[in-house]
Each structure stands twice: as C-alpha cells, then as structure tokens.
C-alpha cells in the first residue's frame, strides 16, 4: 500500500513536466520550494512545539547567499551553491538559536518575528553585496555542462533536492537524534530526566530548520529569478506558519500538503483581485473549523492511513 503510493507519487512528480502546461511546472517548483520550508519549520515547531514567525528571514538569507554565489562564482555547480546557502543559513540559525533557548511560545515567536525584520534591514544596508532595494537578478545556475535555464530544468532540480530533504527528514525520526527529539516533543522535563541534553537538541532543531529553509531559499532565488527585500516580508513568514498548521503540525506529509494547498490557493485566487484575501481568509477559517489539527490529522482518521506512522504524530489536544 505504502510502496504503491510512493511509486505513484514518484511517477506523477517525474512525469509532471510532460503532462502539465508550462505554467504549472513553475507552480509545482514553487510548491516544492515551499514544501522544503514547511518541513524545515515543522522540524522546529513539530519537535519543540514552538512557532517561528521569522522563517522568511532564513529564506532571505539562503536566497541572497545563492543569488550572490551564482552571480559572483558562475562556475560553482548548483549543488555546492545550495549547500553553501543552507550552511550559511544554518550558521545564522545557530547564532539565533543559542540565545533564544530560554524563550518559549510567544516570546520565541516575537523574537523570530523581530529577526525577520532585522534580516530585511540588513539586506537593505549591505547594498554593496545585495544592491539594496534594487534587488538582484539571478542568472541561470550551472550543473556541469548544463545550464538550468528552463522551468523544466529548474523543476527537476527543485524536486530532486526536495526528495532528498524529505527522505532525510523522515529518517531523522529513526535515529538516536530523532528519538531524543521525539522525547523532547512529548515532554521536555521527562526527556531531560532521561538524560537528553535539552539545550543541545533544541539548538539542533533550530539549526536544521534554518538549514532546510536556507536551501529552499537558494532554490527560491533560482526558480523566481529575482530577489529583493520586498520578497521576504513578515506576511511570508505567516504564510509558512499557515502551511504547517493547515497541513498538520509535526507531520512531514502534512507539511508537503500544507505547502501545496497554500501555494495553490494563493496562486489561483490572484484572479479574484480585491477579493483574494477575503476568500483566502474564509478558506483558512473553514479548514481550521472543520479540520482541527490540520489536514494530516484529518487524513489520520481515514482508515488505512495508519500505514504512514512516520508521517504522523499524536494529537496534542
């Protein structure tokens, strides 16, 4: 059952550029980018029960890192650029995560929100590097002899990276680290009593979350082809939070579905012009009223869904 679903999914994802009109290839790339951010955010929120309203800031760091690397070092193969984008963002995550260890809930939410604003300000003021308000055009990245200049090429890149990161996220929960993180999620105090180094694991969750978002930022820069401070406002961070809550907190499948739902909605409602936020808001409210706990939690109630244990979590109500 599970193998069949995975295989079907893989066929759809690989075959998508042949079946779908060109615009939907681009849209699917955006969904995959957002899915990586959502998984990254969920690794933090799902394991530590804390929301971050600053992930647009991490996305911005990754996006600018990749954009600047692609412009200044055109020979650099794209996996290296993305890895660097992720590592740089991860390092910033570490720098933010350590002092934020003492913060919980609301306070962490506000500290990360503030972080998002500070990142945008920093981008504006490092204009020698970032060209400030003008923004940066991102040239096509190179992968060996190929130039990733088409939507289809970029799609395969994004999807490959997303698959890799999803697999990694699924596997984290199987390792010692993953079990420790799960223990932290269930009860910080109980985990600590069992010898889990709380501070280390919470920091780790922060860093991994930032790394994921940084890689996604690099892909964002390549897919959209332009980065500017206006791209990374606080509302984008809020969108990411909406993705993981609508999808289902703590669920990897939920993160992907949440990213797909929010991105598609955002896009397909654009034609409603002034009514777009009205309809979007109504859908958010309805989905939370009728699917408390998000889509993953609703799926879990469907018989047979138990075959996805690693994708789900307990209800914490």
């Amino acid at each position, binding site marked *: 059952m599970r193998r069949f679903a995975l295989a079907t999914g893989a066929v759809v994802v690989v075959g998508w550029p042949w079946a779908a009109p060109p615009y939907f290839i681009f849209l699917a790339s955006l969904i995959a980018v957002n899915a990586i951010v959502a998984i990254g955010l969920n690794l933090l929120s799902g394991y530590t029960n804390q929301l971050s309203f600053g992930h647009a800031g991490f996305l911005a760091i990754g996006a600018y890192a990749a954009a600047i690397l692609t412009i200044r070092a055109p020979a650099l193969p794209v996996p290296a650029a993305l890895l660097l984008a992720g590592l740089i963002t991860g390092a910033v995550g570490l720098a933010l995560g350590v002092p934020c260890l003492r913060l919980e809930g609301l*306070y962490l939410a*506000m500290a990360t929100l503030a972080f998002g604003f500070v990142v945008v*300000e920093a981008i504006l003021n490092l204009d020698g590097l970032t060209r400030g308000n003008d923004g940066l055009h991102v040239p096509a990245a190179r992968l060996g002899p190929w130039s990733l200049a088409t939507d289809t090429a970029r799609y395969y890149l994004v999807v490959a990276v997303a698959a890799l990161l999803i697999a990694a996220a699924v596997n984290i929960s199987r390792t010692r680290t993953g079990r420790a993180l799960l223990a932290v999620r269930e009860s910080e*105090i109980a985990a600590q009593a069992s010898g889990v180094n709380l501070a280390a694991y919470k920091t780790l969750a922060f860093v991994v979350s930032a790394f994921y978002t940084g890689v996604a930022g690099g892909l964002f820069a390549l897919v959209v082809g332009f980065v500017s401070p206006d791209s990374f406002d606080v509302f984008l961070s809020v969108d990411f939070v*909406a993705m993981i809550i609508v999808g289902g907190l703590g669920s990897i499948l939920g993160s992907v579905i949440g990213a797909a739902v929010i991105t598609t909605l955002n896009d397909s409602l654009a034609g409603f012009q*002034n009514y777009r936020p009205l309809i979007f*808001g109504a859908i958010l409210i309805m989905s*939370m009223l009728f699917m*408390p706990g998000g889509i993953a939690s609703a799926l879990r109630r469907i018989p047979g869904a138990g075959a996805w244990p690693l994708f789900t979590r307990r209800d914490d*109500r």
Partner: protein
Amino acid sequence: MTWASLVHVVVSGLATGSIYALMAIALVIIYNATRTLNFAQGEMLMVSTFVGWTAMQVLQAPLIVALAVAVVAAALLGFVLERVVIRHAISATHFDVLIITLGLSLMLRSAAGVTWTHDEFPFPSFFSNRPLMVGPLRVAPVSLGIIGASLGMMLVLGALFRWTRLGRAMRAVAQNQRAARLMGISVERVYSSSWMIAAVVGAVAGVLIAPVVFLSSKMGLVAINGFTAAVLGGFGSMPGAVVGGMLLGVLENLAPLYLPASIKHSVPFLVMITILIVRPGGVLGRVARRKV
C-alpha cells in the same frame, strides 16, 4: 538639535506609544481569557473606526458620535466574532485558533477595501494640531490629548478589573480556568466580555490614532507594534503592556535621532531581541515555570 525639539519628539513618541499600549492591552485581555493570539485585533480596530466614520459622514454628526458608534460597533463585532467563530474552535489547539484569527484579519481588511476602497481618508481629531507655546517648549495638543485619553482609558480598565464582578471573574479565568469554573464563574461569559472589551479598547485607540495615520484599510497594521509592546512588557501583564508600549513608542522616535541610518529602523527589534534574551519574560513579566 535643541532640547526643546527633543522634548517634542519624546512626547510624540509617548503619544504613539500610548496607542501601542492600548493595542497591547487589548491583545492581553483576549489572550488572558481564551489563550488566543488575536491577529485580527488591528483589523477590528480599523473596521470599527470606519463604521464610526461612516455614521458621522451620513448623519453629518460631530466627532463624538463617531466615537460612540465605533465603540458600539466594536463591541458588537467582538461579540459576534467570539460567538460565531472562536467559540466553535474552543476545543482546537492554540495554533488552530491562531490561523483562524489570521483568516479573520485577512477577511476584515479585504472586506473593508471592498466596502470603503483601499484609499486613505482624513479623520477629524478632538485635539488641535497647532502647537502651544509653554515657555521655550512647543507642545502639540494632539500628542497630549492622545496620551491623556489613553491614560484615561487605562484607568477605566484598571478600575474595571479591580472592582467589578466581571473584572474579578476575568482575572480568575486568566489565572486558572478550571478553578474559576468550579467557583461558579461563567467562563463563556468571560470569553464574550473579553472579546467585547478588547474590541472597544481597539475602537478608542482607532479613533485616537486615525487623525495621525489617517483612516485606511491598512491602519490595522499598528497591531504589530501592539504585539511587540505586549511582549516587551511581559505578555499577560497589563502594567507591562503600558510600559512596553511607551518604551516602544519613545524608542522608535529616539533611534532615528541619534543612530546612523543603517540601523535606526532595526532598533526596536534589536532591543526586543536583547530584552527577551536578558529577561525572557519581558520587562515586567515573570517566567512561568511549567510543572511536569
């Protein structure tokens, strides 16, 4: 820079700070009752101010009518939102409710744009904009008026919490819902009242600030500063909300005076991060210890 203009800038900052404080108080009232972060607080302020303004335009009435209508509209809006939407999500997690209030804020802003357009409109003020000379100082009545009216509103709220039955019930619910219910307090009534009171506080803030930032569908964004203020002061504490609001207002004004352009806009956020790291519970807050 003369010290007279420094005084003016600080007073001006206290005026916007007192609006932030009112927003922070409204957020804290709702949080204490339903443990909800109300993302729609700013939009509730905006819609009730618009309703008051429309009544004033249609009736050709004085400003006090706009205030009265805004307050009534706000109370009604707070009541309806809590009853129709939030109450149904009472079993949901806080995170679910967060998304619901986010949805509400998007809907209210968009609906206001459809109804009144996204244009900006001038809004009359109770207080004059022309300066008064007090010795060497120039004082703007509008700043003093906003500070005075906000402090008045805070005193009324303080009295309400301290001396009325409802206020005691609200404090009890904030401390421990189950115990409050066992004591015979109608927790549902506290939910309703909290949303209504928070909405009314917002409406007053809206009528006070609309002459300064103008009436528009985007004026609700001032609520973000309300969040910052509430957290600066230690979320959940009323005096903390006031201190946090004033601090933020003054900080926002002093930073551009003395700091280089490159960091002046980040200062409120940097200060917030620093304060949170040094005192994780905010300036006046306590860190809650959780039991196993």
